[in-house]
């Protein structure tokens, strides 16, 4: 009998309920947020600010945000 994989995946430490995207917004600009799973951050594209999600808990106080570096487009 194969035991190479578990039947149910272990929840990720930084799991985020994406259903929340229908309710949440940037606390400053009030625009919609984008979930960046790779960095576990919620991105406000309007302000170019990222808010962290730590062990599934979004940190959405304005001072929790960090400015994203300017990207060349």
């Amino acid at each position, binding site marked *: 009998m194969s035991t190479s994989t578990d039947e149910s995946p272990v929840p990720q430490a930084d799991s985020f*309920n994406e*259903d*929340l995207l*229908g*309710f*949440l*917004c*940037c*606390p*400053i*600009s*009030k625009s*919609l*947020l984008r979930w960046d799973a790779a960095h576990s951050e919620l991105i406000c594209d*309007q*302000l170019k*600010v990222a*808010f962290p999600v730590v062990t*599934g*808990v*979004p*940190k*959405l*106080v*304005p*001072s*929790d*945000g*960090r*400015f994203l570096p300017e990207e060349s487009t």
Partner: protein
Amino acid sequence: MHRLPANISALLRLAQNGRLQSPLRQFSTASFGSEDVAASEKAGRVGAVFSSVAPSYDLMNDLMSAGLHRLWKGWLVEQLAPFPGMHHLDVAGGTGDVATRVARDILAQSPDPEAEQGSVVVCDINPDMLAEGQRRLDPSAPEAALMEWMTADAEALPLQDDSVDGYTVAFGVRNMTNIDAALREAHRVLRPGGQFLCLEFSPRTNPALQRLYDAYSHHVIPQIGRVVANDEQSYKYLVESIRRFPDPDLFRDMIWDAGFRRVRAQSLTGGIVYLHSGFKS
């Protein structure tokens, strides 16, 4: 009337050290217990109070209110009248006491386990209070499935307009720097017809009770804080912050000014605590 700046360059001017600050904080003073401090400082100092008291917060509530806070919160949830599929927001409710009651009540009203259950978002500006709340809640409890936890500033909520059915805040408004801003945000995020409910200690009560209340709050509570939590100063702050809170009539006017209607201030337990409510029309 303060409005958040619409353009990004204004926001960049407000940013300090690459981190954003709530715009209003930098320009005003606020009361912190019996002191006046710069508003930008109040949030930090209040944060320190709540990080210190978090582990013993609910025990402290029991002692400060002789267990009455449980009854008051029960009444709050009853007035809220949770319904199946409700999306609720509890603000400054870090340890999750009110939120878990709301979640249990939503489930109690839901006959169909397959139907949309709704959600209860608990937010608090202090992550230590939230962590304490999460630690206490049994993850296998049915209400845990409805709970969402996040840090947020009541004066700048990270929620879309008209997105929640109910908004509660229990013993949290007096810690806020700009109450008018918090009330406007509450109005913004509620859907039309949604209810705002706020439980808060009254700064003054009837004279007969007042002397007893003063003696108890000034002499006994800080000592309890010292013994229970080894933190007399924080509990002095908590007592003093009640004294500086607007009078119930003034607070009711502030709720009206924020746009709520059918505003009511209901006195509980001889006027020690008020339940303020209003609806978004």
